[in-house]
């Protein structure tokens, strides 16, 4: 009984800590008062204002566009890296390649952002590209740090599965390109999907690298939100948090239900 009590106690405290701030934020998003913490009455006022806020809507659209493009490019290159490192032995300066593909994982975002910004400025001076900071520079930067995360996921999947399958295909006379598309790719598909999803969220959530590398017309959602809450509180941001939480909760529940029906099958 004592043990059960300890378990329930720990889990209750732990999950309350995780959820109390989020739930408070959601509750106050319905507060009909410009002063966020003083309760005046229930209303959807801030949701209405949020949906009429051009700046936030546009930033949301920009973020979604950059995140889906970045995730797609990063996944393609992450698969290439994972495949190269586990299946191709003759790579020029292999340790350097390993260093390049894994150190973005431990590089503080602030250093990554600074170095990319200085790079874009100098390359603009020397060859005139990129012509200005904007969505393209943010996209390039997001691809660069996401590639490493996807590569790790793909690599661990590729090194854990049975290579004999590929060798069998080779013995049966399949050409190497076909082996990749018909044998390897289907096996690592779940890893590819989770890599894409991770790269997508990394890009959607990034504030620091985007702040360094974005320019006029390329404000992502975190940049706009940060500029609103850096110095004070904003009831519109409360409403935005509630919507994002709702999306995440629905996504999590549907993934759970899909998994459960898969297991039952």
């Amino acid at each position: 009984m004592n043990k059960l009590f300890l378990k329930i106690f720990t889990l209750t405290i732990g999950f309350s800590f995780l959820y109390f701030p989020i739930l408070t934020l959601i509750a106050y998003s319905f507060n009909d008062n410009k002063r966020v913490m003083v309760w005046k009455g229930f209303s959807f006022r801030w949701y209405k204002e949020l949906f009429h806020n051009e700046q936030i809507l546009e930033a949301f659209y920009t973020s979604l566009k950059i995140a889906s493009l970045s995730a797609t490019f990063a996944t393609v290159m992450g698969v290439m890296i994972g495949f190269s490192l586990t299946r191709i032995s003759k790579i020029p300066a292999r340790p350097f390649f390993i260093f390049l593909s894994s150190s973005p994982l431990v590089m503080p975002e602030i250093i990554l952002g600074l170095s990319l910004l200085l790079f874009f400025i100098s390359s603009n001076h020397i060859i005139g590209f990129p012509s200005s900071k904007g969505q393209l520079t943010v996209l390039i930067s997001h691809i660069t740090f996401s590639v490493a995360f996807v590569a790790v996921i793909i690599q661990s999947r590729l090194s854990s599965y049975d290579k004999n399958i590929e060798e069998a295909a080779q013995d049966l006379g399949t050409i190497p390109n076909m082996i990749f598309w018909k044998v390897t790719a289907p096996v690592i598909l779940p890893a590819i999907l989770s890599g894409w999803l991770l790269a997508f969220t990394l890009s959607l959530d990034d504030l620091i690298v985007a702040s360094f590398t974005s320019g006029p017309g390329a404000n992502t959602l975190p940049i706009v939100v940060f500029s609103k809450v850096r110095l004070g509180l904003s009831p519109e941001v409360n409403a935005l948090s509630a919507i994002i939480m709702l999306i995440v909760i629905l996504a999590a529940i549907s993934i759970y239900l899909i998994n459960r029906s898969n297991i039952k099958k």
Partner: protein
Amino acid sequence: MIKNLKKQNVWFVFTPYLWLVLFFFVPLALIFKISISVSEWGMPPYRDLFSLSENGLEINSTLGNYLFIFSDPFYIRSYLNSLSLAFTSTVLCLLIGYPIAFYVAKSKTSTRNILLIMLIIPFWSSFLLRVYAWKVLLQGSGIINSILIHIGLISEPISMLHNHYAVILGVVYTYLPFMILPLYGYLVKFDLNLIDASNDLGAKPLNTFVKVILPLSLPGIVAGSMLVFIPVVGEYIIPEMLGGSDKLYFGKIIWDEFFVNRDWPIASALAMSGIVILVFPIIIFQLMYAKYNFKNE
């Protein structure tokens, strides 16, 4: 293994290779170059490393930026503050996260799946908004102050924002899922019969924990700690939103040197020193840990 680099594999290797050289390695080399340049007014705000003048080739390189950083305790303190923040919050996340991960992993399968979803939800939701939530809670007119006043612990709102305790709280809160999920991953694979076996053989619960459970969950502890420690070292957002001027951190210093003071050479020198002081120890630790694991296997 494909032994020879055939034509069809060349682009497979070289597309990402070139990309990373161009957009990861060259930028790093560039901040190294700028960090040993002399700053001056203009655009870009530093002098070229090599310049041709009437006296022939001139080299304008200096270690002055590094000397400046390391002679000023202000910068050194910011590195130490960042390291101590990362260390403190990793330990706190471990202490809070371990029991949660342990009990979630030990639950019945049906409860476990629901609890797991509840752990993943904060993990997937926006980082910035979770930090913002604490800013709302800790306000002078915030809910925590109201509760404390209501139960009579304090009579006037106390200032809980803008100090380094708020920063630690914010970091522990936002990074806790990064600690719990890898711990859970290892603990869930753990055979519960081992605990019974250890108990049956007469080990006290503490002994069972230290000698059986802890060593088997060590990879999870290391993975979780890395996931917390590495990003916290360069953290900018949380100190900016919740912190005050009592402690300054490395991320904010670089940001201010670049955006506020517009001193590119100093910002670059800070970034390069940051890599040496904060990132190299992590890489060395990972290599040593990999070696240690290799020996034990």
